[in-house]
């Protein structure tokens, strides 16, 4: 930009320059200025916040984004950029970055027992291996609550201090001290241990100082007294090892987010931390037969489900489109409006509605269509699969009907006429002209419909929840009879129940991505061939 010529060199740039001057302070420019001022204000706020929170990554990203946006909108060049940048910013952060982050998580052990950083794990291990210090007096304490977080507060040398498991005792502002006891704290509630919060309070071990070996405060059942516990393990910072002071055993960092002994066995009662473990999650998926066999079944069902969904909806939609593709039918619009209702009704509601309709005891399907027979539609693996296909047929055929109708109407009428003139019988006309032309037009839509159903989480989750589940086993990771890959990812991630294993779940997500990508690339190539043939 520094070597901007004084006089425009070409005719085109001269024209651009005069235009820019002419439209310089027009209403459009002022709107742009106001918008940019807003965006810059928000951006600078973000930068300040990131600086305050000490988050380098967010700080750097925010500054780069600010510079790029300002350059793009104030420079004369980069015109395509002006139209691409807004979408690209969101795409990069919430899609591309998230994809890459998924790939990263898939090579870590992130999940239950491996949630936090190594420092947090070291503190946690020390607080888990403790014994009451015999020579130290208990502290008088109160339990504080703020939202869902609990703290222990006490008086040290006349000053109120408080802390929680990952925050050693530090000065507490706004506390009222009467007779050496804390009686009230601004912004916090003083609570007593009860049946609901005891599980949390029991695990609350507040370090006395940054050095965890100084000991921890843990509250008694009465919530007014805390004994000092000393770790029975000693952490050696230089060697990065734990030594059990009772048995003398030494545990070192095993490199997989866990302290282990010399034989590689996990240190008893110790939590791990998030660490990169390479392709272990992928290895689990492919090599562990307990994992691999059910997943293969899930894969087969996923493909069958997606294929049958597309095939059945397309077939029904096509037939109806052919039936209605005649100008002589009166009231076409009314038929069409009523027929596409399932498509307009939000999908998750339909799936739940059908779940009620397929209810064994009171559902409309059993009561009306099967005369009160108690068929357990969603309880039997094969019936559940059949139900899913049928529900998806109801959900999806209006879309195919619309698409087929549109394509049928775009077939040039001269083509049909010339075939008729040539004396081709209707069936032949259909087979040789209508069907191929229609197919070329809708093939890309069939592929995207396949890809959509491949990951149709809502339908499966809402209708069967992936069930029926095999047996009543406690292992929540085993897929049910109707689980497709994406709902199995959800199961592995353990969001609703069970123990989360984000590493394994994301590894499976990446595999799904590769699969869908490969299928889509292959089929798009096939359709291109189809187009060339026509």
């Amino acid at each position, binding site marked *: 930009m520094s070597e901007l010529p004084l006089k425009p060199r070409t005719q085109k740039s001269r024209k651009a320059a005069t*235009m820019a001057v002419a439209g310089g302070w027009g209403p459009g420019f002022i709107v742009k200025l106001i918008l940019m001022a807003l965006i810059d204000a928000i951006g600078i706020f973000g930068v300040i916040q990131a600086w305050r929170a000490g988050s380098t990554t967010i700080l750097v990203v925010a500054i780069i984004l600010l510079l790029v946006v300002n350059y793009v909108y104030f420079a004369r060049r980069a015109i395509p950029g002006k139209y691409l940048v*807004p979408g690209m910013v969101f795409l990069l952060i919430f899609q591309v970055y998230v994809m890459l982050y998924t790939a990263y998580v898939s090579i870590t052990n992130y999940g239950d027992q491996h949630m936090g950083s190594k420092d947090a794990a070291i503190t946690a291990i020390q607080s888990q291996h403790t014994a009451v210090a015999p020579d130290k007096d208990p502290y008088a304490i109160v339990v504080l609550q703020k939202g869902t977080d609990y703290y222990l507060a006490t008086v040290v040398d006349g000053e109120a201090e408080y802390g929680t498991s990952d925050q050693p005792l530090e000065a507490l502002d706004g506390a009222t001290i009467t007779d050496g006891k804390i009686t009230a704290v601004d912004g916090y509630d003083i609570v007593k241990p009860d049946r609901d919060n005891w599980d949390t309070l029991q695990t609350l071990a507040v370090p006395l100082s940054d050095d965890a070996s100084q000991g921890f405060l843990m509250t008694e059942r009465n919530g007014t007294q805390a004994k000092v516990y000393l770790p029975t393990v000693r952490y050696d910072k230089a060697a990065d090892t734990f030594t059990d002071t009772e048995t003398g055993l030494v545990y070192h960092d095993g490199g997989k987010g866990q302290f282990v002994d010399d034989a590689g066995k996990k240190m008893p009662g110790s939590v791990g931390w998030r660490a990169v473990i390479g392709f272990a999650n992928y290895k689990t998926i492919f090599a562990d037969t307990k994992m691999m066999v059910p997943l293969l079944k899930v894969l087969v069902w996923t493909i069958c489900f997606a294929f049958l969904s597309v095939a059945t909806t397309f077939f029904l939609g096509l037939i109806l489109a052919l*039936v209605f593709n005649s100008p002589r039918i009166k009231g076409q619009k009314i038929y069409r409006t009523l027929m596409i209702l399932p498509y*307009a*009704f939000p999908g998750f509601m339909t799936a739940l509605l059908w779940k*009620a309709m397929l209810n064994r005891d009171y559902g409309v399907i059993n009561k009306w269509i099967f005369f009160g027979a108690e068929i357990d539609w969603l309880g039997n693996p094969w019936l559940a699969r059949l139900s899913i296909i049928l529900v998806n047929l109801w959900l999806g055929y209006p879309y195919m009907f619309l698409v087929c109708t549109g394509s049928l109407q775009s077939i040039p009428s001269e083509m049909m006429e010339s075939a008729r003139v040539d004396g081709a019988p209707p069936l032949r006309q259909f087979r040789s002209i209508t069907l191929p032309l229609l197919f070329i037009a809708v093939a890309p839509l069939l592929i995207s419909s396949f890809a959509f159903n491949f990951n149709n989480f809502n339908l499966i989750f809402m209708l069967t929840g992936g069930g029926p589940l095999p047996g009543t086993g406690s292992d929540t990771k085993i897929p049910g009879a109707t689980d497709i890959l994406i709902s199995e990812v959800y199961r592995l*991630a353990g969001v609703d129940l069970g123990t989360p294993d984000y590493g394994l779940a994301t590894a499976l997500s990446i595999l799904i991505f590769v699969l869908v990508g490969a299928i889509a690339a292959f089929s798009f190539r096939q359709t291109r061939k189809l187009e060339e043939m026509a």
Partner: protein
Amino acid sequence: MSAIDTSNVPLTNRAKAHRVKWWREVGWRHCVGVVAVLYSIFPLVFAVNMALSPGKTGVPDASKLFQQVTGDQFVTLFTNNRPETQVHFLNWLANTVIVGIFTAIGTVLMGGAAAYAFSRFRYKGRRTTLTALLIIQMFPQMLAFVAVFLLLKSLGEVIPILGQDSLVALICVYLGGALGVNTFLMYGFFNTVPISLDEAAKIDGATHAQIFWGIILRLVAPVLAVVGLLSFISSFSEYIIAKLVLTTPTKWTVAVGLYSLVANDRYAAWGLFAAGALIAAIPVLALFLFLQRYIVSGLTAGAVKG
């Protein structure tokens, strides 16, 4: 035909043949149509029955259709008079509409702008960005829900409004998918607008912004309507990310809220769910019927690529 009373006069052969022909060519199509319409709407009848049933939990007995009609479920929905369930239906509806509208507007504007850039400018890296988009859009955002969750957690520590439990954050996540899915649909449509129009405007001294806002966007209005509607509907139905992002019951969307009513088989409040579903479906249905004309052309425009 109408002038002659044919009811008690035997049909002439010609009229009979005419009727048979009508049946063979048109009449049976009406029969098929009636069957298809019945197939499409009978679950909705059942939904209305559930919504008007008095029971608190469980699926109402379908054999007693419309025998006990009450508006209790609707009252509960709006007054939250059942202490054992969290029902903040008005909040859910408002949240969903806010998220849906902003997502739709953002998607239309950003997708339209990107499609304009791809369709009208030739610049370095154009093909690469197009191909990259094609690949990225195959990765459904939902697959990355774990990463979305973690990203929002760390963003929220810096800028709370972009963190968990914020509608703004949810809209941002949805807008992340704005370019991927819709740009191609729009791109194809933009290409059908003759470039000579732009050139004429350019000669008359219009800037690229004037061409975009004043000419192109108006000509592609049908596809904008379709994209806006589709993104509104998909954000309306999205469950998994909304569930992870929004944790407080008053901040839930309709999808998360209504699912919570029937998530537990033993306490499933099916009547309440049906009542909520029927009300929540109204804006979507209205939009859909209103834009029906555009939808049919928009969907097939994607099929017949330019």
